[in-house]
């Protein structure tokens, strides 16, 4: 894995991550998956979403029991298991689909996750079993992620534990290559963040994952926190954060200097039946006329539309005119509205894309 910085300006940076022949331009969004598959998109449709080599985020927590690590290892790793040879797979210990890292319940033996079979305490040993079987391209060590409102003492404990587990993971790593992301925790406490960042920077990791975001910190503080944490991290290493949801937050993260994101925002919109409709490029925005008086009064939300509502019953336009995605090229709002009404799962597939 090689990381090249190409340009930067005022904190934000654009770079290139290279994994063998695959290249990933950063800043980049990782697609969240459950058991390795995006929630509703099959393999052939994935080609439509990520025409060039895209990146997927998997959670090793999903792979602890079924399929068990022995099976994954016997197949030859997650790339072979899911035929993802042409994609980059990043393993983050955060499961955004519902098995939340239940920070306050972590013990000294491991972090706690809510799985379909109850709460599991996962220690570094078990975690590394899964990682060694999966062999993702890039993976983060096991963090002890704590919500931002916890006490300072708890944060201190989480930083200590994370560092300890980081060392354990590095020792248990079967293949010594430069694909490890060290996790920086510490909550909203700038002191702890600094300590964690510096200690992690001293280890032999090839990048950093900033943990603990999206777990209850105040959004206004987030940008400042990101900036201050990153100040202590070396520049030439890649940075990742998970848990930033909305596009505005992601942009804040980019401004602070993050390269890789994963976010469940698209998926949560899909599950509620919304589609994003904000303009993507600055050129479009110039031609985008401002809200008129009555629209403003009606408090229209211009960033997304609710496809459940009967407004779209006869609307034969695509979701966004001019969008090149599969759903907008091939289907209309009226069709997706009908699918949502009859509770068909194709609705989620199309909205996900």
């Amino acid at each position: 894995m090689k990381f090249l910085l190409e340009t930067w300006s005022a904190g934000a940076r654009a770079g290139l991550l290279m994994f063998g022949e695959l290249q990933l331009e950063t800043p980049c969004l990782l697609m969240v998956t459950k058991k390795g598959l995006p929630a509703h998109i099959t393999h052939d449709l994935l080609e439509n979403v990520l025409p060039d080599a895209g990146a997927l985020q998997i959670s090793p927590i999903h792979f602890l029991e079924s399929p068990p690590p022995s099976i994954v290892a016997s197949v030859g790793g997650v790339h072979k298991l899911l035929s993802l040879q042409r994609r980059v797979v990043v393993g983050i210990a955060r499961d955004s689909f519902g098995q939340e890292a239940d920070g306050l319940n972590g013990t000294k033996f491991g972090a706690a996750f809510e799985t379909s079979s109850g709460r599991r305490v996962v220690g570094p040993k078990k975690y590394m079993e899964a990682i060694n079987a999966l062999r993702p391209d890039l993976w983060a060590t096991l963090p002890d992620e704590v919500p931002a409102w916890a006490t300072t003492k708890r944060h201190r404990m989480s930083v200590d534990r994370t560092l300890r587990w980081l060392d354990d993971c590095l020792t248990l790593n079967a293949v010594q290559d430069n694909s490890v992301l060290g996790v920086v925790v510490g909550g909203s406490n700038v002191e702890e963040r600094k300590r964690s960042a510096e200690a992690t920077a001293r280890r032999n990791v090839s990048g950093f994952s900033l943990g603990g975001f999206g777990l209850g910190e105040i959004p206004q503080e987030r940008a400042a926190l990101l900036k201050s944490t990153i100040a202590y991290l070396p520049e030439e290493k890649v940075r990742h954060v998970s848990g930033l949801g909305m596009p505005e937050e992601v942009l804040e993260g980019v401004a602070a200097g993050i390269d890789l994101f994963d976010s469940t925002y698209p998926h949560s919109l899909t599950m509620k039946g919304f589609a994003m409709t904000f303009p993507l490029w600055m050129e479009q925005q110039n031609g985008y006329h401002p809200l008129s008086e009555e629209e403003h009064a009606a408090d229209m939300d211009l960033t997304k539309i609710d496809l459940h509502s009967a407004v779209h019953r006869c609307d034969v336009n695509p979701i966004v005119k001019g969008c090149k995605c599969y759903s907008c090229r091939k289907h209309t709002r009226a069709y997706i509205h009908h699918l949502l009404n009859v509770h068909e799962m194709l609705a989620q597939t199309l909205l996900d894309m």
Partner: protein
Amino acid sequence: MISGRLTPVHRDRRKAAQHRHQKRGGGKGKEGANETNSRQAGKETENDERVGSESADEPVARQTASVLQLQVAIPGRSSDQTGPKPACDAVSFRANREIKRPRRFPPVSTVPPDGHGREPADGWTSAQVLARHNLARASRLTLPHHVVQTPMFMPVGTQGVIKGITCDQLEDLGCQIILGNTYHLALRPGADLLEQIGGLHKFMNWPRALLTDSGGFQMVSLLHLANITEEGVTFQNRLTSGVDLMTRVTVCSQSPVDGTPMLLTPEESIQIQNKIGADIIMALDDVVKTTTTGPRVEEAMHRTIRWIDRCVAGNVLARQIYAIGGLSGGEEKDSFWRIVAQCTAGLPEDKPRYVMGVGFPLDIVVCSALGADMYDCVYPTRTGRFGSALIPEGVLKLTNASMATDNRPLDPSCTCMVCKKYTRSYLHTIVTKEALGSQLVSYHNIAYMMKLSQDLHTSILEGRFPRFVQDFLQKQVWTPLMNFTLSIWDSYNYTSGIDKVEFALYDKQHLKPKNTLDTLRIEKHPVFSSSAAIDYCPVEIQLDIRRGLKL
């Protein structure tokens, strides 16, 4: 249960005598068979289906061949008789009494230069039979949106979509027609909206052909909500049905568009179907459950004919199809094939025949041999959603524990995306837990059915239909209940012109075909990984079969 050779039937005593004579002379070493047949001739067996079943004391030394042989007797080619001709026995009499004698065609499996088929004046639709094998036909249907090759399986997309599969994926899979359901589409999104948008093709962006059912099946499936009169069918929309104090149960409401009762007359049904804009539409028929007997059935038949006249009168766009309907719900297998055979014998040759609700691969092969062309069923997609995958060897239950360690693809011979990319062990973990699991297995099942349709078509076209059926049967793992199905083969082998089906017996004690579940007391099956991972006939069919056999 079937335990021996299934001898086809001959009504001609002279031929039977010839057969006996020939068998004494040689053949494949099956000298004992004629004794069986003559013993049984004239004896009314209690159970029709046990054709050729041998008593236990019959020596089995002669049963040595280990393959399933299908032999085709081609009349007129006596020089290369491929096997002994079987004798006449009791079953033949019964079979002959009940079925009209089917027409025999010249045994030519070639492409006639101009095709058989009538070109209608408007040139929109035509059906051309490209090749035949006795009763089976391979033909080409030209429809406004697509040219369809039959025998053809049509996946069912009830509410305007096949569950979980996009139209692009369907095109990749090779689907040529898909089904839509008038009743559901008229409720949501509504016929007027579809007319406004320009038809279901535009609405779902499906460029190929569409077929709509008339709403007749809902008469059976939603019987407690429907009231059938001469005028039409009145459906209570779910919003309005409350508790009937006398007998009925509250029907929980979901959300149909409005609460008014919906009267579906033949004219209305055709109008809605025209608005939907399908390539093929069905006339509204008075459907009764197959287990009904008595005067209701006759009433239904006459009423259906009256309704067909009304439908044709109300039809704007001219299409012609003949359908054999009402055979979908759990009837006994022996009557099922008889009825199909009777219908195909009686219907015109140049029009396609559509058997509704036939989904099991074996049934499709059988009905194709009897002369039907089009099939639809929710079986492949529904069973895929519940974790059963269709493979040439049978039905694989992905939820079975033995699948957790099986790293092979679903079906090594299948070329669909799912079989190329995912292993059984992975699918086992997602199959009933994730939406994507059901999508993937449905995808594969549709691919399997498409391949089956394609194989049927090309095998008839190329003149190797018997060989194809033989291979198909050989690959499947037989369950004890499918033995029963095999015994029926004998009777309709005659009607379809395939003269003899032979099964080999391995197990001398039990006298059953080798690869049945009973004899497969092995944990490690080469394809299924364990005998528990094989799924077979659904319970309803099993019960009916058991009842028929008085087991």
